C-alpha cells in the first residue's frame, strides 16, 4: 500500500509538472503569438502609409489634363480639378487656356463653343471670352483662370499663385 501510495504521489507530481509545462508553453505561445500579431497589426498600416499614393501631388494646385494630341485646336474639354471641374481650351495649335468650369452665376459647368470661340454656360446662356471675362448673360464675375503648361506630350493645369 505505501509503495502504491508513493508511486501515486509521484505520478501526481509528474502530472502536475506536465500540466504546468503545458500551461507554460501555452502562455509562451499566446505571448509570442500575441506580440507578433499585434506588432504586425501596427506595422501593416505604417508600411502601407509609407507607400506613396498614385497621385503623388499633395495639393489640388496642379492636375494632369491629358495628352496634347487628344484635343484638337479650337476645342475644349472639361477635366476634374480637385473636387471641381475645370475647362481646358486649345485655342490654336500652340495656345492653351484653362479656367474654372464653374459658372459664377449658379455653379453650372461651362463649355467651349467653337462656333463663337467663347465659353458658354448652357443653364442661362452666359458667355465668357477666352480671358474668362463676362461677355453677356447673367454671370456676375469672370471665371477664375488657371495656368496651362505643356510638358512634352502632357498638358498640365495649375492654379495661379
Amino acid at each position, binding site marked *: 500500500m505505501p509503495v502504491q501510495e508513493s508511486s501515486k504521489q509521484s505520478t501526481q507530481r509528474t502530472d502536475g509538472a506536465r500540466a504546468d509545462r503545458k500551461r507554460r508553453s501555452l502562455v509562451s505561445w499566446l505571448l509570442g503569438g500575441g506580440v507578433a500579431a499585434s506588432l504586425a497589426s501596427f506595422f501593416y498600416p505604417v508600411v*502601407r*502609409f509609407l507607400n506613396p499614393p498614385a*497621385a503623388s501631388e*499633395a*495639393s489640388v*494646385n496642379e492636375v494632369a489634363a491629358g495628352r496634347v494630341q487628344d484635343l484638337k485646336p479650337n476645342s475644349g474639354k472639361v477635366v476634374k480639378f480637385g473636387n471641381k471641374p475645370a475647362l481646358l481650351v486649345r485655342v490654336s495649335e500652340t495656345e492653351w487656356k484653362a479656367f474654372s468650369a464653374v459658372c459664377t452665376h449658379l455653379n453650372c459647368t461651362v463649355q467651349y463653343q467653337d462656333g463663337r470661340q467663347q465659353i458658354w454656360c448652357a443653364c442661362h446662356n452666359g458667355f465668357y471670352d477666352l480671358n474668362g471675362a463676362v461677355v453677356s448673360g447673367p454671370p456676375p464675375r469672370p471665371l477664375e483662370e488657371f495656368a496651362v503648361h505643356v510638358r512634352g506630350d502632357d498638358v498640365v493645369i495649375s492654379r495661379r499663385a
Partner: protein
Amino acid sequence: MSAAELRARAAGWIDDRLGFGAVRELMSHKVVPVHAATPWYYFGGITLFLFAIQIITGILLMLYYRPTVAEAFDSVQFIMTRVEFGWLIRSIHSWSANLMIFVAFVHMFSVVFTHAYRAPRELTWLSGIALLGVMLAFGFSGYLLPWNQISYFATKVGTDVAATTPAIGEALARFLRGGEDVGGATLTRFFAFHVIVLPLAAMLLVGLHLLLIQKTGMSTPPWMDRSRVRTMKFFPNFFLRELMVWYGALAVLGALAAIFPWELGEKADPFTSAPAGIRPEWYFLAQFYTLKLIPSHVWFLEGEMVGLLFFGIAAVVWVALPFWASNPDGSLRSRLVTGLGIFLAAYLAVFTVLGYVK
C-alpha cells in the same frame, strides 16, 4: 556548441563591448514600492509611451506634410484622403497628443498628492514641470499646422494674449508670429518649433527626468513607513505590468482614431472675420475662460494683463512647490500642499468645463 551556448557567447561578446552588464545590474536592483498608491506610478510611463507614439507618427506625417500657407491644408487633406492609412496616422497623432497632455496632468497631480516632489526630488519635479511646458508648447504649435479656420484664429487669439504680457509682450508676440500678424511666417516658425526645437528639448528633459528617477529611486508617500513597504522588482515584474498598460493605451488610441477620426475643418481664410466659437485646445481653456471673465480694466491695469500677472505668480508658486512645502524644521506642510492641489485640480476641471460649455 548548443544553441544555448551560442546565445550565451553572443551575449557575452556584446556585453564586453557595450557594457550592457552594468545596465542589467542596475535594472536588477531597481525596485518599485507596492502599496495602495502604486497604480499612480504607471502614469509617468504612459506619458512616455504616448510621447514615443508621437515621435513615430510625427515622423510619418512629415513625409507628406508641407509647411506653407498654400499647401499645409491641402497636404493634410491629402494625408487624410489619399495616403493609405493616413487618416489613422493623423488621428492617432492628434488623439495621442491630447491623451498625453491629459495623462501628464494626472501624473503631476499624483506626484503632488503623494508628495513625491519633496527632497531630494526637487530637480525631478522641476524637470517634470519643464516637460509639461514643452508638451503644451507642442500642442500650441501643432494645432496651427493643419492651417484650418479654427486653428488659425485660435492661434491669432493665443498670440494676442501673449502680446499683453507686461514689458516683453509685444516682442514675445512678434517672436511667436514671426511678424506683425499670424501668417506664412508663423506657420514656418511653428513647424520648426514643433519638429526640431521642442523634440530636442523634450528628449533632453525626458533623459534628465529618467536619470533623476533612477538616481533617487521611487518615492513612497510620507504617511507610509518606508521600512515596512513591500517592493517588487522593476524588471520584469513592474515592467510587464507597465507593458500591459501600454498595450491597453494603444487599444484605446486605435479605437478613438477609428471611431472618432480627427476632423480636418475648413481651410483658413485670413480675410474672413473670425468664425463663431473660436476656442483654444482644451488644455488652454481654463485660462482662456478666466481671461474672458476678468473685466477689461482692473484698477488702472488692463484686464488681460492682470490675468497674466496672476497666472504668472501662480505658476511661480507652483513650480517652487518643493522649496516651500517643508517647514523650517523639516516637517512637511502636507495639508497645505494637498489643499492647494485639490483647489488647482478643481479650478482646472471646472473652468475647462465652463469654457467648453459657454
